[in-house]
């Protein structure tokens, strides 16, 4: 098995150029999402979907970047992507086995197996995966599986001019990300933190293979504050149900035995 690969997206280095969005669409030959002016800052693709696998969020906020900076204003950019969760709701809910975990640890939808049932869509806590209307199947970021197989990095990371999107081995990325947060804290940017870097930080997903460095609440970037893969509590539920069933079974057996004894006695 190859090393586990993923993204570390450092939003403090993002300049909002959207090169990642375009490179992704070009490499994967994705269609447009329609030509709609939203009036929401410079964001006209709005969110991730079946045809947008990288999406840059633009957050205009009436607070300075660092306390003490001039002007009560800052503009945040963040390139969002499929998180390739350690516990992937889409994968776990896929009834056909179309969604698999690859040798790189990424979560991949096999388009020739997907039957378009849509279970994965409701089971993604981030709203990443979606079905394309014209073919009915579910689509999302592949972590450029085809490029990885050819020893190339994903198109978005390759095109990022400022190393905001960093691709690599997850263990190494985590280490780098933690150092980065320390450095930013030293520089006075105390609001910097990692989002989903490991299971401890985000138990609901058991950590993200594509994690982020943010400087404001996750909600500001349209990310859930405490995402939980629905199959995870479901499994716990199955477990407790199993305990319950077992208990009932035991009780039944017990009573049967007792009854038998009673009858026998």
């Amino acid at each position, binding site marked *: 098995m190859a090393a586990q690969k993923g993204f570390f997206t450092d939003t403090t280095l993002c300049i*909002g150029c959207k090169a990642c969005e375009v490179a992704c669409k070009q490499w994967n030959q994705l269609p447009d999402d329609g030509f709609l002016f939203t009036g929401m800052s410079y964001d006209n693709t709005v969110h991730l979907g079946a045809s947008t696998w990288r999406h840059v969020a633009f957050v205009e906020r009436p607070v300075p970047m660092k306390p003490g900076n001039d002007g009560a204003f800052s503009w945040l950019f963040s390139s969002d992507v499929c998180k390739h969760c350690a516990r992937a709701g889409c994968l776990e809910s896929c009834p056909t086995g179309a969604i698999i975990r690859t040798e790189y640890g990424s979560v991949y939808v096999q388009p020739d197996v997907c039957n378009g049932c849509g279970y994965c869509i409701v089971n993604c806590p981030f709203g990443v995966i979606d079905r394309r209307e014209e073919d009915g199947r579910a689509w999302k970021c592949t972590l450029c599986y085809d490029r990885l197989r050819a020893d190339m990095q994903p198109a978005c990371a390759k095109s990022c001019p400022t190393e905001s999107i960093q691709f690599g081995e997850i263990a190494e990325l985590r280490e780098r990300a933690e150092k980065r947060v320390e450095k930013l804290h030293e520089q006075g940017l105390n609001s910097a933190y990692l989002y989903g870097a490991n299971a401890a930080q985000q138990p609901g997903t058991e950590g993200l293979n594509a994690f982020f460095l943010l400087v404001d609440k996750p909600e500001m970037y349209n990310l859930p504050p405490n995402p939980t893969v629905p199959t995870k509590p479901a499994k716990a539920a199955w477990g407790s149900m199993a305990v319950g069933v077992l208990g009932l079974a035991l009780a039944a057996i017990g009573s049967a035995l007792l009854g038998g004894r009673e009858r026998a006695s």
Partner: protein
Amino acid sequence: MGTSFGRGGATDFPGDLVNSDVIVIQGSNMAECHPVAFRWVMQARERGATVIHVDPRFTRTSAVANLHVPIRAGSDIVFLGGIIRHILETEQYFREYVVTYTNAAAIITEDFRDTEELEGFFSGWDEKKGQYNTRTWMYEGVNPEPAGGARESEAGKKAESIQRQPIQAEKTDPTLQHPRCVFQILKRHYARYTPEMVEEACGISKELFLRVADTLCKNSGRERTGAFVYAVGWTQHSTGVQFIRAAAIVQSLLGNMGRPGGGILALRGHASIQGSTDIPTLYNILPGYLPMPKAQHDVDLETYLKLNESPSGWWGEYRKYFISLMKAWFGEAATEENDWCYDYLPTLTGDHSHMNTVVDMVDGSVKGYFVMGENPSVGSMNGALQRKGLRALDWLVVRDFQVTETADFWRDAPEVVRGEVKPEEIPTEVFFFPAAAHTEKDGSFTNTQRLLQWHHKAIEPKGDTRSELDFIFKLGQRLKNLYRNEYDQPRNWPIRDLTWDYPTEGILNEPSAEAVLHEINGYTVADGKPVEGFTSLKDDGSTACGCWIYSGAYRNGENQAARRKPHWEQNWVAPEWGWAWPHNRRVLYNRASADPDGRPWSERKKLVWWDAQKQRWEGYDIPDFIVERPPSYRPSREARGKDTISGVDPFVMQADGKAWIFAPTGLQDGPLPTHYEPQESVMPNPLYPQQCNPERMEWLRKDNPYHQPFDDPRFPYLLTTYRLTEHHTAGGMSRWLSWLSELQPEMFCEVSPELAMERNLKNGGWATIRTMRGEIEARVLVTERIRPLRMRGRIFHQIGLPYHWSTKGLVRGDAANDLIGFVADPNVAIQESKAFTAMIEPGRLSKAHYKLKKLPSREKDRDLPRAQNKPETKHGYKAFEAKEGNV
């Protein structure tokens, strides 16, 4: 830049910005318009540099800068003048650098008068001609030639009267105390550019201004350096050249030129704009910035050469470059006996810059027009006038990827849609040729840092698409065929004798781009061997060279531009990636990175130095100096040409080898940058009674009306135009591509919440924006990124308009340039599109034409009486380099 330092190119390369301690980005939205080069700014910031963005809008650049300084569009000279004053007042200039490497010590003629004394004019204003006679701006007793800028500022004057002598060193005062020395003149000129004035004119608080000025000063000197970055946000003003001059003065005073992490980076608008001035698409220069011959006085070769070669400095070599160019073009036909075919060259009879050409089309004197890689109907100012010009042509050729608005101006232009113009009444015959993309052709790009990078053809062009090279080559062949039977007539000899024999290759029989590079590089005529560089060129016809500054790009018969050695296999200057002119030097004037004795100013800022043992200049970069000339060398009084360059003259292209803080010649509108208001402003000039640049180019005609100079009640808002990352200039390369179009799908305007309230504009709704040139509609984006400015107790609103859209493509919208009038800088004829006035109303454009209230013209408020007799449309000869940014 040419006038200040000797060459029009950016003095540094973007990768060197990582070495900067402070980066001031002004007149540029670098993160949005040059995102790839911006990586080095981000790296510098991560290494601790302070990034300052001075801009009317809070953009993606501001978002990642350490400091954003909102400024009123068009007031940059007040801001930069304020910094100059601050540097002088607080004595934070780099004294040793200033005294030795700049002309601060030079003494100016007794007749010179400053704008402080003459209500905003310098001495020498000729009321009748409406232009300056620059004689009184000269150094005392000498007449140095400008290396760049308007070498023709005295157009029409008889050749004999132009005196030439090398600069005399004794006319200087190294103590900088002489009242007429440049340093003292500078002090007086900017005395009133105080922090209070900056606050009043630019809308920047005194505290914020002082913070910028101090940061800049603290990060300059022996140990530290700072860089300026600009783009068309500076050039597109009627005082644009002087904006850049002001930065040149700041950088000269702080000793930041020619040093790592220093310099002034002119960011070019798109790929190979630098190349299109080096090997020009401009009307007034020949390859390598050699001026075009002028009909009035360049009557023969000797006169032309005499007028253009300088007795001192590098331009003493002029003859070699020119004769080699003629040998490249006319081959064996060019001989000493026939003056190397000098007569074959067309001569200029006037100003044929872009806007004049359009006006000439309208007026019927231009009949045909080639448009390649441009979409002037969308990308050029006053779209209605542009299209009026196109309608008056006999023929129009457009080469582009798509049938652009310029090609289809007769079918769906706004005035056609409105029914004012009927397609069947337009006589112009339009020829459209599909163009090949860069992946479909061999060739080079010359980018921002004068770097030539080769691209190899990846696939054959599809269908009828062809490269420009192929088109021009085959057009030339056809012309030769058409004239073949008339070669007995001397007027056809230029076509007969033109060397047009490039080898062709491939299934499409395309000319070899490398063969063209070989010719550009230059070769010895006898054996066709490539020359080493421009120092090998001769004036006896034994060498041929298509562009002397590119000489060396094909050294040893190797395509130097195709070198791709990665940066981790060489030093940080990366001299083996591509090839930069001149002579592959990456940091221009890098002699200045060492002190007068040739030692680096500091270990931290080491770049080139004098190696006493080897008796030559050595360094990380290729020395931009005569390599064997020791720092101790001083020229004799009899010296001429290159020999006049002393060991402490880093600016080798300048007649005196110095950076020009004061430009004694070379500029039309003054030796020192002076604040004038834009043609259309929101306030009277706070500094001088003269409102606008008295030398600006105006086109006073009915189809190009101007608003009142300031306080026009019909047009109360200041408007500025710009580009977005998501689109490419006039949209020809982006509006047909879904991946880019969806990112910015509609024309919009950016307004502050305060202005939205004042004009009842709703976010996501519609607005109509109006000037006397036209009306457009746009979606509204209300954002705090646009901030109202408070000046003189009043609130001023600025409106931001991107200009990418028009009537064709996947995404459509109105074109912002339809709002802008023809007004231009006098030095380079670049339009003023970054600051003008307009009105904004809620709602969509109504079908009925809006009737504007007629108000008396207040032209008299724009100019004092002495400047009111300007020639209306003819402007004499303009500058040396007349395209985007190249000043």
